[in-house]
């Protein structure tokens, strides 16, 4: 799973969001490291929906335009949990190595 897809799924973990809402949430979650352009966002959304990891939730009118909200599917929730566990395990290994070489303080 790419970093962008991981953050998009994470942005939807606590509830449905519309396109720009996802962009803002991803920027906040990544502390500004991931800034999604709209073309990139919809490339990710298109791929995630084709894989059955997200689905449309509802449409709401805003300033005369329809905003489509997206939500995680059960498969998406499972995929996100698996990916989070993988990333956490990788981080644990890295931290253990750094402690061994004395480049990160224990604890």
């Amino acid at each position, binding site marked *: 799973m*790419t970093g962008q897809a991981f953050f998009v799924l994470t942005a939807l973990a606590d509830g449905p969001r*519309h*396109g*720009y809402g996802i*962009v803002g949430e991803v920027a906040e979650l990544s502390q500004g490291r991931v800034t999604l*352009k*709209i*073309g*990139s*966002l*919809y*490339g990710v959304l*298109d*791929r995630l*929906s*084709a894989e059955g990891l997200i*689905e*449309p*939730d*509802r*449409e709401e009118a*805003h*300033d005369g*335009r*329809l*905003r*489509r*909200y997206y939500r995680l599917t059960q498969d998406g929730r499972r995929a996100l949990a698996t990916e989070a566990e993988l990333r956490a395990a990788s981080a644990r290994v890295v931290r253990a190595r750094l402690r061994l070489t004395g480049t990160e303080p224990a604890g």
Partner: protein
Amino acid sequence: MSSDLDLEDRYRRVLRLLPGYYRDEWEEDMVAAFLDSRLTGDLDEDVYVVLFGRPSWQEVASVAGLAARLYLGGATAPRRYFAWGQATRFAVLAVTLVQATRGLDVLLLTAWSRRLFGWLPAPPAGMVAAMPSSLPSAVWYLVAYAWIVAFVMLALRYYRIAQFIAALAIVPDLVTLLQGQFTGRLPAPYVGPWAFFFLLNLAPVLAMTAFHRDAPSAPCWPWLLALPANYLLVVVPLLALDLNGNSAWVPDFSGLYCILVTLACLVRLPLARSRQAASSGVWSLTLVLLATDAGAYRIFSIADYLHDRHLINVGLAELLILLVAVGLIASDAARAQAAASAPPPYPQPG
């Protein structure tokens, strides 16, 4: 508000880069998200942005990147886009194979010249590969070998590494061409080398973008085996002709490219004409792409032979047989474009 249409229209114009089926599904949502990203809620500022604002080049680049991925479609794309994607990927592999075969030729001639094949007699004087005596000649050898690495990486599905190596490999050629162009050290009209650079160096490097995440993996072993096979079946007979004093029969690289694509079209012909359901037309479309590349290179490189009527006639004959051969499989290539199936429907909310 009419001014509201200005920024929106500009963005919709950018979205025209995307295929129609994709716009039908996503355009309104993309426009809404884009406008949300630009409008702040401050009336004065928003009026200014709507009137004079334009999509940033990063936004345009993100849409262009998405468009490239969709037109060169993966397994879930509508059939015609998948066909274009597969044909482009196969054509890139084929052109990179040609470049790698040239690199293998340099490598083996160098090894032969260093007497690393003890069981072979010494190479004839005209075929001895000289030791690199300067930085440019050393770089020339490195570039030849780099194409072998790029091809192997591509076949092994390390797509971005392959693209990076190939991109590095074309830089020295570009520097040499620019140097020659601006210093006037190289002969006019100098069209062929530029055509080679654009059609056989730059085009495949750019087209490697077709190997994206959604692209199905090509089987690696047939492509890896194609490298020694291509060397044995194409280069060795040409070397033998050259060694036996029949160098007049050895075509130039452009002519060889045309002849190889012509032969591939003729090999493909029985299946292309059989109207079997198994023939998706993708290989024929691949050959059409390769024929376009080879034909364009032949046309431009003829400019190098303007002084020799015989060579011009040979070049035109090569072009003619290529056109005839590709014409024979064109209907099968068109089959890849027909019956474009709809993409998987996106479920509607509710």
